[in-house]
């Protein structure tokens, strides 16, 4: 295992200590942070390793949320419902991936983005099952205190993050990870050396969707009420990408750091600049892109200087 992967696991382990220090609100933030870290890590499988800029995170997040929500309303216990979300997203994404991942670059980005729209409208119009625009209530797991409830969901999300991280690390060291890397660099050549790129991409897309789906399910159980425009919010797709860029594309440690740093920034800005917080966030994103183009992971190396001066080997 590489040093950065070990660092990633250490980082995640440290996060587990949060309930020792924080109140319920801190736990809520922690839960959100874990959730976004799951998104960013998942996105990294298809966006970072395979180089396909996916905007489908929100689609599978929403799908997972609704699957769990509906199952729980039918009396299925939480864990089973989550498993249901996970498996459904895995299979559906793999199937869709086999078709959509024939597209490259921007075209794929748009197709994955439209998935969000299509899923949202489908859920919106399947009123009998999902409540449509009226939203869906998820039964309260009653009887627990505020803090124990918060702690439960925090650890549940954290656990999911840990599993995601382990899977991502395993992928990065495996033949699958190597293959995805090949696909990113040159797909024609990948096929030519005997790599079944359709299969690999489908697996990658499935993997990148299943944990997001499970996180969606957990989220639904946590907030008790979901509606289509909330869980199929395109920002769930955009933010993981910003996080991954901030942290450093392709590096699991980087994207998790990116997620934490981004959420921290967002929280601080949101609290302090009520009227102009999104503008301030925009400024921060731009500054980061301009001055840290290779993400936070580049900080440790001497690359910062290059990043600042923009001096790069020019290859024609």
């Amino acid at each position: 295992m590489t040093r950065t992967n070990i660092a990633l696991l250490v980082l995640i382990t440290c996060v587990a200590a949060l309930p020792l220090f924080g109140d319920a609100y801190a736990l809520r933030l922690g839960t959100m942070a874990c959730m976004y870290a799951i998104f960013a890590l998942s996105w990294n499988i298809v966006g970072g390793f395979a180089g396909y800029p996916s905007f489908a995170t929100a689609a599978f997040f929403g799908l997972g949320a609704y699957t769990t929500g509906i199952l729980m309303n039918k009396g299925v216990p939480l864990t089973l419902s989550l498993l249901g979300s996970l498996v459904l997203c895995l299979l559906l994404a793999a199937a869709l991936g086999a078709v959509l991942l024939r597209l490259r670059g921007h075209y794929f980005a748009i197709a994955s983005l439209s998935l969000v729209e299509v899923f949202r409208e489908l859920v919106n119009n399947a009123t009998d099952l999902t409540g449509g625009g009226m939203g869906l209530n998820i039964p309260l797991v009653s009887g627990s205190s505020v803090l124990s409830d918060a702690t439960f969901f925090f650890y549940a999300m954290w656990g999911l993050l840990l599993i995601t991280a382990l899977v991502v690390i395993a992928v990065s060291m495996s033949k699958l990870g190597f293959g995805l890397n090949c696909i990113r660099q040159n797909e024609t050549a990948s096929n030519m050396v005997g790599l079944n790129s359709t299969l690999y991409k489908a697996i990658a897309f499935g993997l990148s969707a299943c944990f997001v789906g499970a996180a969606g399910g957990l989220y639904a159980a946590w907030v008790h009420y979901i509606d289509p425009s909330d869980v199929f919010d395109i920002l769930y797709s955009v933010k993981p990408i910003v996080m991954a860029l901030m942290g450093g594309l392709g590096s699991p440690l980087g994207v998790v750091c990116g997620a934490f740093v981004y959420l921290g920034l967002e929280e601080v800005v949101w609290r302090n600049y009520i009227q102009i917080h999104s503008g301030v966030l925009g400024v921060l994103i731009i500054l980061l892109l301009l001055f840290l183009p290779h993400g936070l992971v580049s900080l440790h190396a001497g690359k910062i200087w290059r990043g600042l001066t923009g001096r790069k080997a020019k290859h024609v």
Partner: protein
Amino acid sequence: MLAIQVLINALVLGCLYACIAIGFSLVWGVLNVINLIHGSFIVLGAYLAWGAYNSLGLSPWYALLIAAPAFFVFGYLLQRLLLNRVITAPVLVTLTLTFGLDLILNNAMIYYFKADYRKLILNPPTGSISIFDVVVPVDRLIATASALALTFLLYLLLRRSKVGRAIVAVRLDRDAAVLMGVDVKSIYAIAFGLGAALAGCAGVLMALIFPISPLTSSAYLGKAFVVCVLGGLGSVSGALAGGILLALVEGVGSVYLGPAHAVTLSFVLLIIFLVVRPQGLLGRKGFE
């Protein structure tokens, strides 16, 4: 009768969609940048028309003459000073950059104009023409005509002019274009400026028809996406074809399936198009 009415509606609306999409398509096709700020540019253009009409009494036709150069300069500078720094970076970087820019511009508009809706009401109103039972609003007709004119101008520029060819060349192979003596940075800036100018003009025209608010920017952006893919990236005539196709699908879909499904339908169509014919209706094969 209903069928004819829906058809006419779709034709007119399709031209408006094309107008919304064309600058976006240009920037995407040429700079390879998905310009998320496009929707906000359109809204800004609409505010410009609204302001010019309400405070200066300037009719939207004159506002077009102001919007085009003003937005061109704005876009030009934005590209020169900011986007050019990351233009060679991967797709996602430029996308995120425009995302950040959009956050800023949209927030600024909300802050300055507030989020409530405004409406540009021409006095006297232009009304509608009706032939037999088919009705066409005059303002839409005018906007359509202007949209067609703008589209045609852009087409000429790209196809016939040297700058147009340079724009395409830069998009295809930056370094080779340098070898041809093209000043890449300024071509980028010109293309982005053109995109912005088209967005601004589209905004002026939209102000005649749709309520104005910073919040509509995402709806415009969504349409631009779909039209652009349906029609073919960077293709001017494609944008027109894509716009009309989208409007037709939406119109027919909303009559037969209900308006809520019209949107779903358009996105399903989009995905199908992407998978079977990524180059779009009129896009040329071999692109990307």
